[in-house]
């Protein structure tokens, strides 16, 4: 199996605080790789480094053998690295369709086109509708995003990210704040995508993680302490002590 994402020796410190400490991480083609760890372990920081919002102090990030370090956020997205946000970052004034259509538009070359009505671009609109249908949001097509429920916004986050046509999707706590039923829906939706693209899933909901992940890496204080299949992680003594809180026995 070849690695799609290959991270080597990645590091980041904020002043005296080391938040990413020499991280090696591989995400293989088509796998769901979960990244778990206690609060403050540096999971979101790592996501921000991967997607380019935060520059790294040291280390390399490669996607499909291409070095990503010097690329901006937008350039990385165009190479196939998309992300979702823990707190939904959507265009609240725009409709569901507009939000997804912009993502489709972003991959159709530059947008320095000033005269043609973008909302009448059938190709873009139809492609966008496909992603919205997959997310089960067709009934909310023309609603402003601000009017959507929290769960619907989370689903739209995923739809928007998919519309950039990524090879690798970074999911930053997609279940956070969802009710039980909504969580189930999200697990099903992500499960349905399995094999079509690779995913790096940061999540606190262990039921979701163990239901979805092919492999799991555990991040504690900015370090990867273990990587393995769900069964290996469940049985790993170090993980239990550091994370699952069963170290008192």
């Amino acid at each position, binding site marked *: 199996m070849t690695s799609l994402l290959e991270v080597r020796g990645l590091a980041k410190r904020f002043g005296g605080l080391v938040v990413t400490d020499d991280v090696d991480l591989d995400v293989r083609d088509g796998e769901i790789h979960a990244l778990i760890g206690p609060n403050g372990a540096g999971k979101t920081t790592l996501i921000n480094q991967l*997607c380019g*919002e935060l520059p790294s102090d040291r280390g390399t990030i490669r996607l499909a053998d291409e070095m990503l370090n010097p690329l*901006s*956020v*937008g*350039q990385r*997205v*165009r190479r196939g690295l*998309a*992300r979702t*946000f823990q707190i939904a*970052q*959507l*265009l*609240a*004034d*725009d409709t569901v369709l*507009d939000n997804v*259509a*912009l*993502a489709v*538009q*972003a*991959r159709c070359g530059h*947008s*320095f*086109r*000033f*005269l*043609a*009505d*973008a*909302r009448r*671009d059938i190709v873009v609109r139809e492609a966008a509708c496909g992603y919205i249908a997959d997310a089960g949001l067709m009934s909310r097509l023309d609603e402003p995003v601000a009017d959507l429920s929290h769960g619907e916004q989370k689903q739209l986050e995923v739809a*928007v*990210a998919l519309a*950039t046509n990524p090879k690798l999707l970074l999911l930053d706590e997609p279940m956070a704040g969802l009710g039980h039923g909504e969580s189930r829906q999200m697990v099903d939706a992500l499960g349905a995508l399995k094999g079509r693209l690779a995913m790096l899933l940061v999540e606190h909901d262990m039921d979701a993680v163990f239901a979805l992940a092919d492999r799991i890496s555990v991040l504690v204080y900015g370090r990867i302490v273990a990587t393995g299949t769900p069964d290996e992680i469940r049985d790993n003594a170090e993980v239990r002590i550091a994370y699952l809180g069963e170290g008192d026995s």
Partner: protein
Amino acid sequence: MPSLTRLLTLTGAVAVLIALPFVAEALGTPAATTLVTSMLIYGIAAASLNLALGYGGLVSFGHAAFLGLGGYVVGILYQHFVSEAPVFGWFAGTNRLVITVPAAMLVCGLVAACIGALSLRTSGVQFIMITLAFAQMLFFLFVSLKAYGGDDGLIVRRRNVLPGIDTRDDTTFYFVCLAIAAGCWWLMQRFARSRFGLVLAGVRQSERRMAALGFTPYAYKLVGFIVSGMGTGLAGALLANHLRFVSPDMLHWTKSGELMVMVVLGGVGTLSGPWLGAAALVALETTFAAWSENWQIFLGLVLLVVVLLTRGGLDRLLRLMRGRGAS
């Protein structure tokens, strides 16, 4: 049928604007034509500022720089046309509108590119202050340019000429401005719905989101700022022709404030708002100035009322009235 109401409103507005000089003549108030010419020109400036401020969320407090710069391009080219001395010892001056207006837009576009490239590295209050600083630098530059009138400004004794059209006639010049304003209005309503317009509106709402979609927000903000500056420069070139005068006052920061007031009064980020705001402000200024020396007090009160009560400017007020009429 909102599209039908819209079409009717638009046709009505165009009909009124075309009939205006003749009605004004018949009623014995030809000054109304000159007044509406000012409204149209300020409308172009406010609508251009709205591209940056309303759609892009770029609160520029220095747009008077482009208004004045556009005016000075006309004034300087005219002075060299009269004196027959080449500009910078390089090229001849001109009094032809088809050259001066594009030249004004080009110069403003280049200056906007420089100002924008530096200011857009910041955002929020810093951006407001930096654009203000750049505009003040240009203001003092023109104050100290004694060759071009310094404090006193430049007089453009005769308006720029157009082949086959007598621009010296106020009514004719009104129609020239009306045609250009109509062109700008059409371009801007296309712009707002275009791919670029949607991206710019997205950048205003969340730069982080737009970057995560694969866009480079900086490039779109910069181009938006340049287009906005060019539009304001066009208005400046027309204003210099209209007043037959250009002075550093056109670049003063209070003028930038006035343009912002027009946009806010009319409705930020709306298509017709800035035009309504410009018309209202020009009309109010003229009316109150005839009443009292301290007319700004009354203007301030009107602004307070409109902004507090409508929460979306005159554009929203009109919509509310129309909505009530329909129901």
